[in-house]
């Protein structure tokens, strides 16, 4: 693609420019048998009887941030939704809504990142769509991805948490809040710079390793918006079980901690894009922890708490200073302090 060009309305009109854009950019980078055929629908062969199917739309602002961009999120987010269900992610669709005047170079950077991430995650982008809207009718670029994965029969229970019980251990694969702080730092108006990278990454490799320990993993959820606190609250409420966590065991980077102090945020509620909360059986907990820690994306994995029979529906946290408090769903927005 030539540089210094901008997206025009005609790039989404279905005519010559659309055709050039698809061939010169999307097919060029995403190339695979299904996409290259340019059929109306991708025709996919699957080998399992259970299919996991998910979709998500990405509207992050700003679109480029330390450690990633909107395209990386769009691939990793959907791959992770499939992976935490216990499925093996295979195929993605990808829909772009682009604002007229969007720089072609930026689009190419985003598409290239998506292709790289898809390759790392071992998934194929097999179908897609592009729409261009008038300037001011969307904010730069929005991306929707949907994903399909195959699931073995004995993994079906994971999404529902059917087997979760008193005594199970809760594991997180590393430090929490990195993505939230990276996005905060990238917002222009804040005049605040930080070296923190978003943790945005596809987790199917890491999860795949742990899933090999048969029956060990009883529940998984990626801790995105609302952070790990929200995941734990939802689990406690839906299973009518108690959860007890220990603040001192939850990995939080020093810089994230410090930034949270300044802005009045709580790292437990900050968004992550590469963190999975796992509930695992007590007997397999240490084994799974070792497997996770052996993977590059799980080096800092830690057991942060357990499922309890007491206090059903509630998440209780032992604070770092030995106090006790209830963790609840994110209450409204996380707002900056003024006093």
């Amino acid at each position, binding site marked *: 693609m030539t540089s210094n060009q901008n997206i025009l309305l005609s790039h989404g009109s279905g005519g010559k420019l659309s055709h050039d854009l698809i061939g010169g950019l999307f097919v060029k980078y995403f190339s695979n048998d299904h996409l290259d055929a340019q059929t109306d629908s991708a025709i996919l062969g699957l080998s399992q009887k259970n299919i996991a199917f998910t979709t998500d739309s990405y509207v992050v602002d700003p679109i480029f941030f330390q450690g990633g961009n909107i395209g990386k999120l769009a691939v990793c987010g959907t791959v992770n939704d499939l992976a935490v269900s216990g499925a093996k992610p295979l195929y993605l669709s990808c829909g772009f809504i682009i604002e007229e005047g969007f720089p072609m170079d930026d689009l190419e950077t985003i598409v290239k990142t998506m292709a790289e991430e898809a390759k790392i995650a071992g998934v194929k982008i097999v179908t897609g769509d592009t729409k261009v809207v008038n300037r001011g009718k969307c904010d730069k670029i929005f991306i929707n991805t949907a994903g399909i994965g195959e699931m073995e029969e004995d993994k079906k229970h994971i999404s529902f948490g059917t087997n979760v019980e008193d005594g199970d251990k809760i594991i997180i694969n590393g430090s929490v809040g990195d993505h939230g702080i990276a996005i905060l730092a990238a917002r222009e108006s804040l005049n605040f710079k930080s070296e923190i990278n978003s943790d945005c990454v596809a987790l199917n490799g890491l999860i795949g390793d742990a899933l090999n320990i048969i029956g060990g993993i009883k529940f998984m959820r990626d801790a995105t918006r609302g952070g790990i606190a929200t995941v734990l609250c939802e689990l406690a409420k839906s299973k009518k079980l108690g959860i007890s966590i220990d603040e*001192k065991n939850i990995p939080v980077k020093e810089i994230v901690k410090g930034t949270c102090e300044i802005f009045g945020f709580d790292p437990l509620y900050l968004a992550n894009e590469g963190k999975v909360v796992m509930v695992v059986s007590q007997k397999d907990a240490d084994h799974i922890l070792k497997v996770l820690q052996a993977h590059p994306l799980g080096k800092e994995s830690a057991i942060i708490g357990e499922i309890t029979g007491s206090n059903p529906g509630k998440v209780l946290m032992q604070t770092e200073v030995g106090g006790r408090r209830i963790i609840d769903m994110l209450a409204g927005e996380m707002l900056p302090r003024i*006093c």
Partner: protein
Amino acid sequence: MKYIDEYRNKELVLQIAGKIKEISTKPIRLMEVCGGHTMSIQKFGIPSLLPENIKLLSGPGCPVCVSSRSFIDHAVALARLPEVIITTFGDLIRVPGSTSSLDREKAAGADVRIVYSIMEAIEIAKKNTDKKVVFLGIGFETTAPASAAGIMMAQQLGLKNFFLLSSHKIMPPAMAALIDEGVKIDGYIGPGHVSTITGSEMYNGIAEKYQLGCVISGFEPVDLMQSIYMLVKQMEENDLKVEIQYTRAVKPEGNVKAKKLMYDVFELRDDWWRGLGILKLSGLKLRDEFSKYDAEKMIPVEIEKTIEPKGCICGEILKGLKLPKDCKLYGKACTPQNPVGACMVSSEGSCHAWYRYNREG
């Protein structure tokens, strides 16, 4: 940023907790009057570390919570003017006014922007010379000097399109009024940030007149536990006085420069406090020589009649007379997602802090 670890040392916290238990015999009620303390106390689970005879109450320490609905109504009316850009701290955006709020006005097309300081608002004014940029000035002695510095800056830059809508207040009149109202407490956990500016001397009168203990405290768990220990010791030894625990930030005389700046730009006026009504000389208005920056004077606007929400007991809660759970609306009609009263909106509000950290607990 590493320094916080030392003030969150678990062994030290538990050691102080042990000492408190050791010396504490009387039932005592301590009140914090700073939203930052309210947050920390709940966040670290401080009440669970104290013996039953020590009760902690939250006072009127959240500026958003004590401000009147008419302040929000005024901001809403300004926001509706097409030539106005409202700049505000995030906490105010969702606070309900009588019939609207700033976030609703924003959704309806008003230009409302969240800023982290008045300096950011000044930048916006510099870039939008065809608009009137109004900064909503809220907070106690902590934020008022910054607003004063902003006004000085606007003057230096010769800005003609920058205005302040002041709801700034000072803390001591409220601390005295609470006791006059019959609120039963034995001591104050004195506000750390406010006192960094004001110093501790200004509390001497209150402590003496009302026979109260007062310890100016920092915000970390070790700070709070040590302050509580100092207060308990005062009560047990019957030696009531003003002390500073937060010595790394607070001096008896305070920040003289900031205080001077504040009173160069502002003067005291009678002001309305939720739960306490009108308190003599408790609010800060721009002095006449700065009235060209005063949104109240320079941007005439019709403000709707204030309607207070039915059933909301924010006022009683701010005085420490009732707990959030005593309110019929709490957790039902009034939640952080759908707040009725201001105390549920601000992250420093008692109801919000309760809801977030301590619900049913």
